[in-house]
């Protein structure tokens, strides 16, 4: 274990925040557009440089050392109720590298991609981007559940703002609201979970919690329920079944935003949180098993939907859901390192896939893969980068996706989760199939865009090349590690063969169907009719959610509305009508004749006298 310097971590955190404040508060800068973008990019580059320095200068430490530096917050009589600070261990530092790197590349890419945007909108975009990076870094470096929750919500807010960046489009606005509400549904569980944890253990901080968990002195009643609730937060954020439905709709945002959300921020937050809190989850094997099963099921479900999707960005979105399923399965199998490894490699090549898809969409002016073709000949660099990322996603050696996916599978085998393991194997076959379906349709085949296009802007092209290089470098590093014998996750020997064979089979099938046209896609679909039928309709999950919303929630609202209108309001109306009626009766006593009042006084005195006599 290595520890980084908390001061550098604070600088990493502070740079994007400073950039957000500058762009957000200085109106002329925000309205200027390009200068705001430059500020944001420079701040991000600085953050990346500091993150690299932090990683470089990290000092080795004994495993029992507290990796966090905290300051007290929320003062109370019996000591502070919560603390803020930074937690700088290996995982946090690697995640910082990933977040700053992907954010920087995405921001550079956006410089060209959003070149035609109005200047004021561009300033707004970069303000959101800076805030997004800050929120995610804060989440990554959080030393306790409370700080994590604050940044967790900020991340949700930023993704809402960025998905709804083109807010004048109704579909984008709806997708943003959907993303916000669906993740909020999971956050309800997360909130309840951490509060229950706090109520039992008396602290939000990871370090005391982990210490107690390891020594077996964690006195939290119904820990299984608590951890399940905490996991619910990850279900929403990391798009696990059944709350994955927001992610494909989130494609309404600009493509660089999709890359950012899918690769480094937002969806990785859930996986990261479960990996971070693993010492606590380890105490509840049943919850872990549920996480593994649900992860594997999510992976399979999303993969089948990706196979029938025509929109290139949605295919990538489903592949993200599927890969998140892998990571969660690894988490559930008790291997947070494998989950985190897959998270980092996936972050790099998924960003590359999305940014490449941005160029593809830019080229063909459509998202429909069936109306693309032959791009590889025209743009060999883009095509090459995309194919590298696709091979990595499909899990072909020696690319990093192969190693991280194998680590996940090995962990699942070791945990004796045979059914999830089979689901993940099938998913790995499907992954290769649907990704190469996109590759063959969009990059090979005959060109369907007959008019001449300008080459993609330099910035977009360069970013893709850099990401492809990093992907290859990560693969090379994994190979080197294997060579010198430091391969961390040692799976059974047959595992590599099976996963490579399945990936190869998927690629061959995609080639046979969409490139060689040896198999008719329609016949393939007919052979798998029930799955095809369900997958095309997204397993009716959206309909179910809508139905639940319409019937249960709106029905309940209607009942509440009726009660309010007729019972509560009726009661009040009856009261006020009674008061009016009584006043109408009583006002007749007031005759206006002074002498009548004197009679009244005399009568009163007489009655008092009588009463005094009788008493």
């Amino acid at each position, binding site marked *: 274990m290595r520890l980084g310097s908390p001061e550098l971590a604070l600088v990493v955190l502070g740079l994007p925040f400073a950039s957000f404040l500058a762009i957000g508060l200085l109106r002329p800068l925000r309205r200027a557009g390009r200068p705001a973008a430059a500020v944001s990019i420079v701040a991000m580059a600085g953050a990346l440089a500091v993150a690299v320095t932090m990683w470089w200068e990290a000092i080795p430490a004994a495993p029992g050392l507290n990796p966090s530096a905290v300051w007290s917050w929320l003062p109370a009589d019996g000591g502070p109720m919560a603390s803020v600070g930074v937690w700088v261990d290996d995982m946090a530092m690697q995640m910082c590298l990933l977040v700053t790197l992907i954010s920087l590349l995405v921001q550079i890419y956006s410089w060209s991609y959003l070149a035609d945007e109005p200047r004021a909108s561009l300033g707004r975009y970069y303000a959101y981007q800076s805030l997004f990076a800050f929120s995610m870094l804060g989440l990554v470096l959080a030393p306790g559940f409370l700080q994590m929750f604050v940044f967790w919500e900020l991340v949700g807010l930023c993704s809402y703002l960025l998905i709804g960046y083109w807010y004048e489009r109704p579909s984008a606005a709806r997708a943003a609201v959907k993303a916000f509400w669906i993740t909020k549904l999971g956050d309800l569980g997360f909130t309840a979970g951490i509060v229950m944890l706090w109520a039992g253990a008396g602290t939000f901080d990871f370090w005391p919690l982990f210490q107690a968990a390891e020594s077996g002195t964690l006195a939290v009643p119904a820990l299984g329920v608590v951890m399940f609730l905490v996991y619910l937060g990850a279900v929403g954020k990391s798009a696990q079944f059944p709350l994955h439905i927001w992610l494909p709709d989130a494609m309404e945002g600009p493509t660089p935003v999709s890359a950012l959300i899918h690769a480094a921020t937002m969806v990785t937050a859930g996986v990261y949180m479960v990996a971070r809190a693993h010492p606590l989850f380890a105490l509840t094997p049943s919850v872990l098993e549920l996480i593994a099963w649900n992860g594997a099921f999510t992976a399979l479900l999303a993969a089948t939907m990706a196979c029938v999707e025509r929109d290139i960005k949605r295919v990538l979105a489903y592949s993200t859901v599927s890969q998140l399923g892998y990571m969660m399965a690894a988490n559930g199998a008790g291997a947070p390192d494998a989950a985190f490894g897959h998270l980092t490699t996936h972050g790099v090549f998924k960003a590359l896939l999305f940014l490449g898809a941005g160029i593809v969409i830019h080229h063909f002016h459509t998202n429909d893969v069936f109306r693309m073709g032959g791009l590889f000949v025209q743009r060999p660099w883009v095509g090459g980068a995309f194919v590298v990322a696709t091979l990595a996603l499909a899990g072909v050696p020696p690319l990093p996706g192969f190693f991280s996916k194998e680590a996940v599978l090995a962990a699942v085998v070791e945990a004796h989760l045979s059914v999830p393991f089979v689901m993940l194997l099938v998913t790995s076959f499907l992954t290769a199939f649907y990704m190469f379906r996109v590759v063959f349709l969009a990059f090979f085949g005959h060109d369907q865009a007959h008019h001449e296009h300008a080459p993609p802007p330099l910035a977009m092209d360069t970013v893709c090349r850099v990401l492809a290089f990093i992907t290859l470098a990560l693969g090379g590093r994994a190979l080197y590690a294997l060579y010198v014998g430091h391969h961390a996750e040692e799976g059974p020997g047959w595992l590599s063969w099976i996963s490579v064979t399945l990936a190869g089979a998927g690629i061959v099938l995609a080639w046979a169907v969409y490139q060689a046209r040896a198999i008719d896609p329609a016949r393939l679909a007919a052979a798998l009719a029930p799955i095809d039928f369900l997958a095309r309709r997204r397993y009716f999950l959206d309909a179910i959610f809508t139905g639940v919303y319409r019937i249960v929630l709106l029905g309940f609202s209607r009942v509440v509305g009726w009660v309010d209108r007729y019972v509560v309001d009726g009661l009040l109306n009856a009261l006020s009508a009674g008061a009016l009626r009584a006043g109408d009766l*009583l006002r007749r*006593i*007031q*005759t*206006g*004749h002074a*002498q009548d009042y*004197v*009679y009244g006084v005399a009568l009163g005195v007489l009655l008092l006298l009588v009463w005094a006599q009788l008493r």
Partner: protein
Amino acid sequence: MPLSAYLMLAALVFAIGFFGVLTRRNAVGILLGIELMLNAVNINLVAFSRFRGDVAGLIFTLFTIAITVAEVAVGLAIVIVIFRVRRTVEADHLDLLRG
């Protein structure tokens, strides 16, 4: 004469005044009735002062007389203003505050 005789006189004057207040239709008559009631109180005060040998009652009476004078002045002024506005001082007709 015993104290009870004075008290009887005071009660009689008070009752006559009260009767006047209740039954007179004219606002000036009502004011006269109030005057009688106040003076019945004065009789009581003076009688008790005499029989108990205490001057406090006498001083109190002087105050009462002064206040009564002020009250009559204000009361008659109100009656005159009412007469100017409404052209009547009949109490039965003065019912603007009727609910």
